[in-house]
């Protein structure tokens, strides 16, 4: 499957991936309105972690072994058999945070008002994820993953 990768050498921590993601999930298309008028403000599913000169744009990797799916208390998390994406059924999510605790990247984001977890779906309605499209430095690439990473047979029987 295609995923987003960060070129750490050229990611300079501008956080525009977060801005693009937030705007993608806002009700409005207007950036200023998304930040200044929309309440509650939409949440970015992408996070930039920084430490000195190192900065990393981090989002769900849709891991083959998906510890979040296995830890989910309600069954809200599952792998979409068609796309192989790890998806959350917001109807069944209660925002407990168990997935956050289980995730090696700590990417599940809690929407505290809606009491739901939100996560990256690689912008399924777009050709290129918003964060990649919005990166001014081409530090994000969207392409197939390393072929020798075997998808665990995991979750096939799930759906």
């Amino acid at each position, binding site marked *: 499957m295609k995923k987003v990768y960060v070129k750490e050498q050229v990611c300079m921590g501008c956080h525009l991936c977060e801005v693009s993601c937030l705007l993608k999930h806002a009700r409005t298309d207007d950036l200023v309105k998304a930040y200044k008028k929309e309440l509650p403000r939409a949440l970015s599913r992408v996070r930039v972690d920084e*430490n000195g000169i*190192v900065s990393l744009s981090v989002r769900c*990797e849709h891991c083959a072994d998906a510890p979040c799916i*296995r*830890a989910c208390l309600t069954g809200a998390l599952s792998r979409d058999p068609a796309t192989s994406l790890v998806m959350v059924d917001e109807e069944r999510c209660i925002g407990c945070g168990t997935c956050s605790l289980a995730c090696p990247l700590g*990417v599940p984001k809690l929407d505290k008002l809606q009491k739901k977890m939100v996560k990256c779906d690689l912008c399924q309605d777009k050709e290129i994820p918003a964060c990649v499209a919005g990166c001014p430095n081409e530090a994000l690439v969207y392409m197939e993953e390393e072929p020798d990473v075997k998808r665990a047979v995991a979750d096939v029987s799930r759906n």
Partner: protein
Amino acid sequence: MSVETKIQYLIIGNSAGSIGAAEAIRELDRVGTVAIVSDEPYPAYSRPLISEYLAHPYPLEKMLYRKSDFYEKNSIQVIFGEKAIAVNPAEYTVKLQSGQVLHWQKLLLATGGAPIVPDMEGVNLKGVFTFNKLDDAKAIDGFLSEHRQNPRAVVIGGGLIGVSVTEALVKRGVAVTIVEMKDWILNTILDVETAALEADVLSKADVSVITGHTAVKINSYFAGEVSGITLDDGRALPCDMVVIAIGVRPRLDAVAGSGIKINRGIVVDRHMLTSSPDIYACGDVAEAYDFVIGASRLTPIWPNAYEGGRVAGLNMAGKTTEYAGGTVMNALKYFSLNIVSAGLVAPPDNTYETIINRHNGIYRKVIIKNGKLAGLAFAGDIEKSGIVYNLMKDGVNVENFKKALVADDFGLASLPESVWRSKLSRPAAASVLITPAAPPEEAVIGD
């Protein structure tokens, strides 16, 4: 009975462990017969959601752990509403309460836990409940619907189940008092500090918490109905209902006398195999490997049940798989306060180092021994706690960056490069991530 008519994979129990096993078996074997026996009449549902069910109208469909066509789609026979009463390892049979005898080739015991009800006067009165399964929530719901005035409840036990039922009862307008025997609520999963944050939100929700005491008697003034409880110091607390939430014990009835090795729960090895060949166990009934203490113990939590069940299922279907181990890990959000904890909550002796960062309702704590994580507790902002949990699970030596683990700006980039690189997947052409050295600089000014 001939071998052909034996159930290839028989699973007793129908919750996280059972589903984990069934899914694993079906990944490897699409045709072998799989049957699930459960004394509950429902398809697998999320047990933690029974508090949502009690709190407000919440349809069973939303509680289902898997889609409603799960059993059919995976060709799993279901025997619901039937209790398994006796496992016979020598005969490869399980006897059901109805008298029916099932023959199997591989058996999984995923019978879960049952609430501990103390031998105390009044526990059989009308208005006394436990809170472990959907029928318990339905019983309390029925009681509340019949009750005319605003009822008062005493919850005996301030653990996960106690606080969980308390939140639901508060949402139903019930005045709740929690009675906790130890010094602080949620003492098996939270440290003093995070428990104090929890106690604070409980108090804001008008819940009374009495610690350091226990109930000795449930009182009744009117024929068979609850009128209050008496504490160990003689104090009487009037109430209309009581929820007993002092803990769960493994449900071992079906294996009693079978010869299967039992300590506090069913003893299993790293393959989730019991002392009996071809019989596996997982979930709340099993004592499985805990990677923090380096030994087996009961860790009755949902994710470990699923994980253990999955490993059992893979082994049952012939793929030798070792259980990496689980530990206690919990994510709480009672009254909208997010807390997570995992591993040890308090260092057992002074060979452990504790690092804490707390301010403005944010609390981050890690416990370290010999450079490796042994426990964590985060409150307020729990995002990224998963990075820390997985460093603990993977046994990464954190000595050189331990202070960063509790820092406000902690993230993946706080870890050594080799560690964060190992956590990120790589693209098909890994070279795209490497930018060639820049060409010699040319001065370009304007156009």
